């Protein structure tokens, strides 16, 4: 063995380490791949060795190779081996490799669960840390489910280093296992107020990330974040919070009002640009959210815009970029304030930095008005000419279209200008956005009726010059515009000047080189054109011309019939037959124009893109129901492939037909040329057919139109858009003059009457009357379409699963899965991994006495409200309205103050309602938990009985209901921790004592029940303090003063009051004497009454239920500094299960582990003493062995326990 070690370390000496590997790779630049494959072979050898150091070294090298792009998934198992090494050095290497290479598809990942759990509970914080870091990268749904509970426990780890990592990784766990969000959320929320800034920051980070996706669920946290924002000095945290508020304000405008002041202060005070920028961003978000309801935040807007201007003017390009980015957000709601900085933004258009130019382009969108649209677009067009690189130019193109088409072309006054801009844009080489231009052309032509004539003339020119647009192969994107051109010319053919000319242009042979879908449109629209020509000719009684057109069609359509594109082929052959039929009829001199035109009668209206989706499903129609029963599987399997195969064969045969050999083609071409030469309608001067086969002889002599590309391309015959700018100016000038004239007249009239305040004749946006109007403003939607926003939601969004209501109380089913322990294992083995985790959070309130519950609840809720103004409405309304932003108008201030008292009035009423059917809750846990449980019951009143019957013992170990719960036995009679304190004819007092770990105090809950017919008021509790035990009194009161009970008791009502006591020594039971004084008032008058009592603090009441892991428990016992004692009680008939439950309940223990008739239990005193018990069940007897850090405490507790057990 020893030698093996020596051998291992000698081997080890000559292994390459990471540095050697890197050096080697650098020295083998020329044959790197070969060298690396050699290294991988070596690594494979190393991985086969037993020495873990060798393996770790190999895995480390693999991690490097992974970075270079080599797949290392084959070593996944070895990585796990290294992860499970005991040394931190190796473990760290293993986890690093795993975090780089493991993913959900790694099958061995499921082997890691136990290893990771072990590392998570490792005593070394760095083992835990490294495991958490690794897990954050490769957590899978399975791992998340199995480890969620362990990680949640780590969130309360003593080391902040672990806490912050555990908090952060919870986000990943939530993503993979959304069910864990609700159980874990309360603790996550607690961490927002963690004393360690790192943990706090991590919690903020996680919640911000969650809230970003589903902000509405986190609105209730706003007050907490507000507090953090005003108190935190960590810029990183501040930025996150401020960003979060930016996401929350759209949901709650009142929040925005509250935020403006602190944010403005931050903007003024901070020196950190990053923080300033985020503040400005959030103020903008606030302003956007307010813009609907609240007018006049101009001061804040001005502040933002002014700060942004500083950013934009900064020499730092980053600030400039961000400034523009934020500016574009203001633009959406307050375009006016941005427009004043037009100069600056236009200047940014000339920036050398493309990112900045793009941002400035975004802003232009909002800068345009009727007045300056032409000017801005002109500027952009010059940029288009200058732009290098297609991306930026394409961006420019889309922006021009966006700017012009925004809100139904509201800024366009002259559509002729716009059409010519669109036509000019077709000159762009290699743009991807041909379809955009095409869509615009179509949209404008359809929706602006007045422009159709002009559009058609432009489009026909475009068709005529199609060769310019579609000639070069790299300009393919732009040929899309021909699609629009053909359609417009066809659809609105009545506006064509020379329809026949256009028809010929559309039937040119080179059209067949266009993409199929464009050809299809050509074919279809050729017929429309044809129909209108026919009609024209027939009306003119020019039968010969009509027949000539038909002949042209018959001659040219076959070229489309041969198309390889199915759509084209189908349409062409269909139409060809139609035209041939028409030809026959024409030969008989039958007028056909009417009938052919009837094919295209009616007008097309634009339909909204989502119209189809929005048609409501008629009642009684089930879209999921089968119309015909589906065929059985066997049938379809047998038949389908056959049919498909058959069809395919046919189609192939059909297709092969046109693809004839070269000779045949040449022959046909010759024939066609012959035909063309003989055809009187063939225009020989038209541009030559596109070269289809480069090598075909005889193409050379076809005249090719040479395009001189050095001069900017101009489509001949098309007016330039610049002309329109001039024309438009003239037009406006004329309009102005006319208007002035009219105004003058009016003014003259007015002068005669009353003198009215009249403005100078400035040209405002509204004054410019557009030359053409958009006729069809709204797109058609089906009747009673459902208004919905659902269209935007992506059902596959992983964050949707986290859209969980967090304010809803936890249900029983929502507990995190906890590993169950196996019976066979040694009870005290510290190595055991299947630790029963007693989940603190899911602990349920103890059994209560029903009659008292209502009052207690009511009171608690009030108390809670007082303590934390946690309710969001309350927080938003009772605080004073935001400090006056310079011009807050009085109206808003009024509504604010009005709202506040109203809300306050509402609060108590709501509480009273809430209190009606609630269980009481005596737990002195942090109040939010209480609230949770209460609400739960509030919402499930039906479950009340069930949950009340549930035994605390069973709930303490949620994962093992069968073992620990009362299910296997009969139910235990209801237990109460309340015992009688004192009673007389007026009042009955029962009390319970509860310790709390946090402040080593005990809380006494006293239930006061009014038995008389009088109203009891002015109740006061005075207790004689002992040296050891004192009652906590309100500040400033003396030792002899009583503590008032904060409520009155009407007849027959009971309520609970709580009093806090501080105890010095808890090892002995204590008794305190006290008196309750009160006034009993009935119809006859008031009497002063007193009731004496003795408060008994048992030792058990100083114990608090604390969960404990079995390994920690084992360590505790082994540590040896605990003293031991034991008791034995005979004659016990109760089942072991119920016995344990009783101990748990009355003495505040929790079950650590239970094996058959033996159980270990743990509890902790309010002063931190550990109390461990081993309870063994014999024949009719129970023995309890206890170990405790204080012998007296232990013996007292055991005595008390003996008394309890004796009653069993």
């Amino acid at each position, binding site marked *: 063995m020893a030698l093996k070690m020596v051998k291992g370390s000698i081997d080890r000496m000559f292994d390459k380490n990471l540095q050697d590997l890197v050096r080697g790779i650098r020295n083998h630049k020329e044959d790197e791949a070969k060298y690396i494959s050699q290294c991988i072979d070596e690594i494979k050898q190393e991985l086969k060795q037993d020495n873990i150091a060798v393996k770790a070294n190999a895995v480390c090298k693999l991690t490097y190779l992974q970075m270079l*792009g080599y797949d290392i998934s084959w070593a996944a198992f070895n990585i796990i081996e290294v992860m499970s090494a005991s040394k931190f*050095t190796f473990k*760290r290497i293993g986890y690093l490799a795993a975090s780089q290479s493991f993913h959900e598809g790694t099958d061995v990942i499921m082997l890691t669960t136990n290893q990771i759990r072990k590392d998570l509970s490792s005593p070394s914080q*760095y083992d835990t840390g490294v495991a958490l870091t690794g897990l954050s990268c490769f957590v899978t749904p399975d791992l998340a489910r199995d480890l969620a509970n362990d990680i949640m426990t780590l969130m309360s780890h003593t080391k902040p280093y672990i806490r912050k990592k555990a908090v952060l990784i919870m986000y990943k766990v939530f993503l993979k296992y959304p069910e864990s969000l609700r159980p874990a959320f309360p603790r996550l929320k607690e961490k927002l107020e963690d004393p360690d800034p790192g943990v706090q*920051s991590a919690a903020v*980070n996680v919640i911000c990330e969650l809230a970003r996706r589903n902000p509405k669920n986190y609105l209730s946290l706003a007050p907490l974040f507000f507090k953090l924002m005003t108190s935190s000095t960590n810029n990183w945290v501040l930025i996150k919070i401020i960003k979060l508020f930016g996401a929350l304000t759209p949901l709650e405008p009142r929040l925005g009002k509250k935020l403006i002041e602190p944010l403005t202060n931050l903007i003024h005070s901070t020196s950190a640009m990053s923080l300033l920028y985020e503040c400005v961003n959030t103020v903008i978000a606030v302003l956007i959210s307010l813009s609907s309801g609240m007018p006049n935040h101009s001061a804040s807007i001005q502040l933002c815009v002014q700060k942004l201007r500083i950013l934009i003017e900064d020499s730092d390009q980053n600030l400039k970029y961000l400034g523009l980015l934020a500016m574009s957000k203001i633009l959406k709601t307050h375009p006016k304030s941005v427009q004043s900085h037009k100069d600056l933004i236009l200047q940014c258009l000339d920036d050398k930095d493309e990112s900045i130019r793009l941002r400035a382009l975004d802003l232009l969108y909002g800068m345009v008005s009727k007045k300056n649209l032409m000017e801005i677009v002109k500027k952009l067009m010059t940029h288009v000419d200058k732009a290098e690189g297609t991306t930026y130019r394409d961006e420019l193109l889309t922006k021009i279209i966006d700017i012009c088409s925004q809100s139904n072309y509201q800024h366009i006054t002259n559509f002729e200008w716009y059409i010519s801009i669109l036509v000019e844009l077709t000159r762009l080489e290699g743009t991807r956005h041909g379809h955009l231009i095409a869509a615009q052309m179509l949209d404008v032509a359809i929706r602006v009726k007045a422009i159709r004539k002009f559009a058609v003339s432009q489009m026909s020119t475009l068709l005529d010059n199609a060769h310019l647009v579609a000639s070069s192969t790299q300009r393919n994107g732009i040929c899309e515009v021909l699609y629009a051109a053909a359609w417009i010319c066809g659809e609105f053919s009545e506006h064509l000047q020379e329809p026949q000319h256009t028809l010929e242009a559309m039937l040119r042979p080179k059209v067949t080189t266009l993409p199929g879908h464009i050809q299809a449109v050509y074919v279809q629209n050729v017929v429309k054109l044809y129909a209108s020509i026919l009609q024209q000719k027939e009306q003119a009684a020019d039968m010969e011309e009509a027949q000539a057109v038909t002949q042209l069609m018959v001659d040219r359509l076959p070229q489309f019939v041969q198309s390889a594109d199915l759509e084209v082929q189908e349409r062409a052959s269909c139409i060809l037959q139609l035209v041939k039929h028409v030809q026959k009829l024409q030969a008989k001199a039958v007028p056909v124009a009417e009938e052919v035109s009837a094919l295209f009668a009616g007008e097309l209206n634009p339909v909204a893109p989502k119209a189809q989706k929005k048609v409501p499903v008629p009642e009684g129609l089930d879209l999921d129901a089968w119309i015909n029963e589906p065929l059985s599987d066997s049938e379809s399997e047998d038949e389908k492939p056959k049919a498909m195969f058959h069809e395919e064969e046919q189609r192939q045969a059909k297709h092969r037909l046109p693809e004839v050999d070269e000779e045949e083609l040449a022959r046909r071409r010759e024939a066609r040329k012959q035909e063309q030469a003989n055809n009187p309608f063939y225009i020989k001067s038209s541009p030559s057919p596109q070269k289809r086969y480069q090598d075909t002889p005889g193409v050379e002599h076809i005249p090719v139109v040479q395009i001189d590309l050095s001069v900017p391309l101009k489509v001949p015959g098309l007016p330039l858009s610049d002309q329109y700018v001039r024309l438009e100016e003239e037009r406006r000038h004329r309009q102005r003059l006319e208007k002035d004239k009219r105004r003058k007249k009016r003014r003259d009239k007015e002068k005669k009457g009353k003198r009215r305040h009249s403005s100078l004749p400035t040209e405002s946006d509204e004054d410019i009357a557009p030359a053409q109007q958009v006729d069809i403003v709204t797109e058609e939607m089906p009747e009673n379409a459902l208004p919905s926003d659902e269209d935007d939601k992506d059902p596959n969004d992983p964050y949707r699963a986290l859209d969980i209501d967090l304010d809803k109380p936890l249900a029983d089913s929502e507990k995190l899965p906890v590993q169950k322990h196996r019976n066979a294992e040694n009870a005290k083995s510290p190595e055991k991994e299947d630790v029963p985790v007693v989940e603190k959070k899911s602990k349920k309130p103890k059994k209560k006495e029903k009659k008292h519950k209502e009052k207690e609840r009511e009171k608690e809720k009030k108390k809670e409200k007082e303590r934390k103004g946690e309710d969001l409405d309350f927080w938003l309304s009772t605080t004073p309205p935001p400090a006056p932003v310079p011009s807050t108008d009085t109206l808003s201030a009024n509504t604010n103050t009005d709202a506040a008292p109203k809300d306050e009035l509402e609060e108590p009423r709501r509480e009273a309602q809430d209190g009606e059917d609630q269980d009481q809750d005596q737990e002195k846990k942090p109040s939010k938990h209480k609230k949770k449980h209460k609400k739960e019951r509030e919402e499930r009143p039906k479950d009340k009985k069930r949950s009340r019957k549930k035994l605390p013992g069973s709930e303490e170990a949620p994962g093992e209901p069968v073992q620990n719960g009362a299910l296997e036995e009969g139910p235990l009679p209801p237990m109460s921790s309340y015992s009688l304190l004192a009673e007389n004819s007026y009042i009955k007092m029962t009390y319970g004592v509860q310790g709390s770990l946090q402040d080593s105090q005990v809380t006494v809950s006293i239930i006061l029940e009014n038995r008389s017919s009088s109203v009891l008021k002015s109740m006061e509790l005075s207790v004689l303090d002992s040296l050891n035990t004192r009652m906590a009194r309100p500040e400033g009161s003396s030792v002899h003063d009583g503590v008032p009970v904060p409520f009155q008791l009407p007849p027959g009502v009971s309520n609970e009051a709580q009093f806090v006591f501080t105890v010095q020594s808890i090892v002995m039971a204590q008794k305190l004497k006290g008196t309750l004084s009160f006034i009993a008032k009935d119809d006859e008058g008031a009497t002063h009454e007193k009731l004496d009592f003795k408060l008994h603090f048992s030792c058990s009441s100083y114990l608090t239920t604390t969960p404990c892991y079995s390994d920690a428990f084992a360590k505790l016992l082994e540590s040896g500094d605990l003293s031991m004692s034991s008791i034995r009680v005979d004659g016990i008939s109760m089942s072991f299960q119920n016995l344990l439950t009783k101990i748990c309940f009355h003495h505040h223990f929790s079950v650590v582990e239970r094996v058959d008739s033996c159980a270990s239990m743990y509890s902790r005193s309010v002063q931190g003493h550990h109390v461990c018990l081993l309870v063994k069940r014999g024949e009719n007897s129970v023995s309890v062995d206890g170990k405790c850090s204080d012998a007296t405490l232990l013996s007292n507790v055991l005595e008390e326990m003996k008394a309890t057990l004796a009653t069993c």
Partner: protein
Amino acid sequence: MIQAILVFNNHGKPRLVRFYQHFPEEIQQQIVRETFHLVLKRDDNICNFLEGGSLIGGSDYKLIYRHYATLYFVFCVDSSESELGILDLIQHLLIFFLIAPKVFVETLDKCFENVCELDLIFHMDKVHYILQEVVMGGMVLETNMNEIVAQIEAQNRLEKSEGGLSAAPARAVSAVKNINLPEIPRNINIGDLNIKVPNLSQFV
């Protein structure tokens, strides 16, 4: 969320690749290459933000990068991160990556012509460990420099107390190997040694 942290040199050679979302190796390499081409064509005096678009994640994601000497540091982040904050973070990481390894490795070869980049190359694992203390699972874990240094140092002490990965003899050998690397090229043949080792075992 941070989607990826990429460090590569002026030639596009990856020096640190950390994805917080799984991509197969070849896709990772492709992303590194494309990112490299995106940032390469940008001048040094233009802004450090780049809308990556199709690369990772989509339109919500941005590339935030810094060019430092021969290295590009690129963060791919979504809109929940503060742009300027991330730029600061890169600055901090730079300090860590380039200075910290020297602190951790006692014998730093000073003959390298370009210390900065080579530190990164030879101590990729260390650099990852540093990064892990700053960013975890795509979220910023700690921004307090002192805290980060303290944790890294504590872990290194722990590693040292365990004897480290390369125990003393191995380090010595590796040092010997390094001294005259050009003169004795690859003459340490593992095959030969493998023969010797069985001999050793026969002694027992």
